[in-house]
């Protein structure tokens, strides 16, 4: 034991003498809710993977904290004709091993994605399939991307995947060689240092970075799944900043003298109630419990009544600890295509009852509200609250929540009618969420409001199979309108028509919170990702 202590002392001394020579390296430790599964940027689409990868690898187009596209590896872009976008690549960019970055790397990345990443559970290859994007190298610092038909959201979509080094990632084993550092050579502000699955990911400053000099010498990501433990780790000093602080603790953390600060921003993730529009619904029943012979959810008055019956402010104040933005919209404020006219429905139980009466359901009906219980912030509590609010106006609502791994399969294809290629959902009304990840409305209108159409790839999260010909034609037109000034009104109109028809009922936008030491500053992001360059010393 004595020997042991001696060794430790010696080690400490030698460390100390080294530290005198230069200023101590600065380390930022980030406690994150979910574990990073891979550092291969084309392996998954999980935010917990992307946010770490983004420190090492860069995309052609990056996103600012408000999810607007900003230049990264591409300095500028413009459509040169109806089917072609031209991207100018940044010169003087070097990979972490010193080799220059060129158009060949971009072409390689496209090829890698298109060839398919062996074993990858969710590569972003579908982004290329969208519009059938073909890349052509013009010179070392110019590429053309061709599509079938005009493709206005090209820059936003190119922000979905990172560029990897052709000379490094050629022929490597996907995921594995990125986790051990062999192929983890990027152009980003930080370099790969260490990846211990389940324990930590460490990245180090890239002194040759082309952009703003990164503040921290080392950044450590530590996964801490439990909310309470993550908070404890912050208070204990094990980590400097955490994502998703538990909402009940927010008021305490916000206090001036708590020693901690909280950053917050309305996120791009809208929480909403979605309906199923079949003739007969398995979870809609008459008051005596017999199956309903008509589907009341097909009546817009019923859907409006259900929206009016929800007290969104109460949900914000009582359930979310103030951390939500009640809304009547699906695209967050400030995003391209935000429909300003749409306001959250004011809570009015009387109005709701009146509407139900007009629709011929003055006695109400029975319904089961389904939803996940571990996917969105306080999802189960929100569902329970809404069920009570609906019951109050006469719609007797039962609640059935389940873990997300059960919920999402069931909501998409849980009905026994499902056959391969033809999904039938199980539920009649449910709570779900959608993040406008691209930062503009084409993505969301197409995914949520457009009719379900596997060939066109539209209505992807329109699990209730809402169909509205006017929404469809406006949205389809917006998707091929290159001129932003002409595209904007199309999107706004499509959103307004869909939501005034109560295709779905938005509840609120989640508010993203981070909690950190009061000696730091943090610039929050709408898209929920945590980046080291958003954290600065105060």
């Amino acid at each position, binding site marked *: 034991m004595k020997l042991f202590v001696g060794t*430790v002392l010696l080690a400490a001394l030698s460390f100390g003498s080294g530290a005198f020579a230069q200023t101590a390296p600065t380390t930022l430790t980030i406690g994150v809710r979910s*574990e990073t*599964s*891979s550092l291969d940027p084309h*392996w*998954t*689409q*999980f935010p917990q993977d992307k946010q770490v990868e983004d420190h090492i690898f860069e995309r052609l187009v990056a996103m600012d904290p408000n999810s607007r596209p900003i230049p990264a590896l591409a300095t500028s872009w413009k459509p040169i004709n109806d089917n072609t976008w031209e991207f100018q690549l940044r010169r003087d960019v070097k990979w972490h091993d010193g080799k220059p970055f060129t158009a060949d790397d971009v072409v390689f990345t496209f090829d890698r994605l298109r060839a*398919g990443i062996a*074993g*990858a*559970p*969710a590569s*972003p*290859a*579908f982004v290329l*399939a969208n519009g059938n994007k073909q890349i052509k190298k013009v010179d070392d610092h110019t590429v053309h991307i061709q599509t079938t038909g005009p493709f206005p959201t090209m820059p936003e979509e190119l922000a979905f995947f990172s560029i990897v080094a052709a000379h490094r990632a050629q022929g490597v084993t*996907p*995921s*594995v060689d990125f986790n051990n550092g062999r192929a983890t050579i990027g152009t980003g502000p930080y370099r790969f240092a260490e990846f*211990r*699955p*389940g*324990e*930590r990911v460490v990245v180090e400053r890239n002194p040759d970075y082309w952009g703003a000099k990164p503040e921290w010498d080392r950044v450590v990501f*530590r*996964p*801490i*799944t*439990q909310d*309470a*433990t993550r908070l*404890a*780790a912050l*208070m*204990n000093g*094990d980590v400097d900043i955490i994502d998703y602080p538990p909402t009940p603790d927010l008021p305490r953390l916000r206090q001036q003298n708590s020693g901690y600060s909280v950053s917050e921003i309305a996120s791009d993730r809208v929480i909403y109630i979605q309906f199923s529009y079949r003739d007969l619904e398995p979870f809609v029943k008459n008051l005596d419990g017999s199956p309903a012979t008509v589907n009341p959810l097909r009546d817009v008055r019923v859907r409006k009544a259900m929206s009016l019956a929800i007290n969104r402010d109460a949900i914000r104040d009582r359930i979310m600890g103030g951390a939500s933005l009640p809304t009547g919209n699906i695209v967050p404020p400030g995003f391209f295509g935000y429909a300003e006219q749409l306001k959250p429905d004011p809570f009015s139980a009387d109005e709701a009852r009146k509407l139900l009466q007009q629709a011929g359901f003055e006695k109400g009906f029975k319904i089961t509200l389904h939803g996940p219980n571990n996917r969105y912030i306080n999802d189960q509590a929100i569902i329970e609250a809404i069920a009570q609010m609906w019951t109050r106006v006469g719609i007797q609502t039962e609640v059935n929540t389940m*873990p*997300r*791994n*059960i*919920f*999402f*399969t069931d909501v*998409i*294809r849980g009905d026994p009618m499902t056959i*391969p*290629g033809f*999904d039938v959902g199980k539920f009649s009304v449910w709570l779900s969420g*959608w*993040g406008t*990840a*691209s930062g503009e409305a084409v*993505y969301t209108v197409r*995914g949520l409001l457009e009719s379900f159409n*596997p060939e066109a*790839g*539209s209505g*992807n*999260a329109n699990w209730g199979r809402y169909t509205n010909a006017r929404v469809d034609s406006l949205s389809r037109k917006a998707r091929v309108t290159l001129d932003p000034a002409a595209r904007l009104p199309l999107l706004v109109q499509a959103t307004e028509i869909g939501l005034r028809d109560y295709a779905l009922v938005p509840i609120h936008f989640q508010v993203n919170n981070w909690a950190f030491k009061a000696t730091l500053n943090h610039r929050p992001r709408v898209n929920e990702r945590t980046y080291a360059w958003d954290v600065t010393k105060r």
Partner: protein
Amino acid sequence: MSVFILRRVMESVFVILVMTFLVFFGVSVIGSPIDIFAAQECDQRCRAELAQRFGLDRPIWEQYILFLGNALRGELGNSFQHGLPALQVILHRAPATLELAFSAVFIAFAVGVPLGMWAGLRPSAWSSRAIMTLSTVGFSVPTFWIGLIFIMVFALWLGWLPAIGRGQTVSIFGLELSIFTLDGLSHLVLPATTLALFNIALLIRLTRAGVGEVLQSEYVRFARAKGLQPSRILLVHVLKNIMIPVVTVIGIEFGGTIAFAVVTETIFSWPGMGKLLIDAIEVLDRPLIVAYLILVVVLFVTINLIVDILYSVLDPRVRLGGRAR
């Protein structure tokens, strides 16, 4: 003995077969990993492609037969999430869990047995009553709560120990272990003690009951009458005779401790197998879940085997059983 071991092995093969069947079909009934992994903008075509990649587009019985065929060749499939052979992913995390479980059992043994003996020797003393009350608490309080309280008291209020994670490791025979560094030990104390509490309580009760019973026996009275030193009576005659149930329970509980480690690991963010399993269930990483459970079955069978062998070492009656009759 070899027939005995052979029978055990065959039994375990059967158990594993039944278990893979249950897990395989159970996990498939729950849901599809595709819907977890696919990004929200991944459309029908993209989802169909994913299903094909994982072989999930085939009928479930076909997937199962395929799995059995591969398993016979020793391949349990690649983890969806990690893209590596499932067994490799698990074994990579095994040292952390085993280290935690061994430490917990060690603590349980070192604390539980002496306290139990004390309580057994002086059943009516107030100290014994206090010990017994504590053991009741240890039984009834759930692990996750104790873990959080430990974190609050020792990491937050007192600031003595780190709240989360595993400390510095050193490589010993290729195993990454943290019990040989100060930093590692400081990280280990809280989770190991949390995990040990239930076993401490169990061992206290078991030892006390055993001591109480053995003290009444003829051979202890005889040893007393013979004038042997009390310490010798206690440490040789009593201790040896109460060891049989203690060893049985420790053996069974060791398996249980590894299983219970799931909760403890999650709370303390301990990067072990248990946390891996939880994460795997979360995303329905079926190969990983199946491989983990196969490993646990093998583990339990092996532990039981070792316990049986230990019996024969501790108790000659077991060893000689066949001949004495």
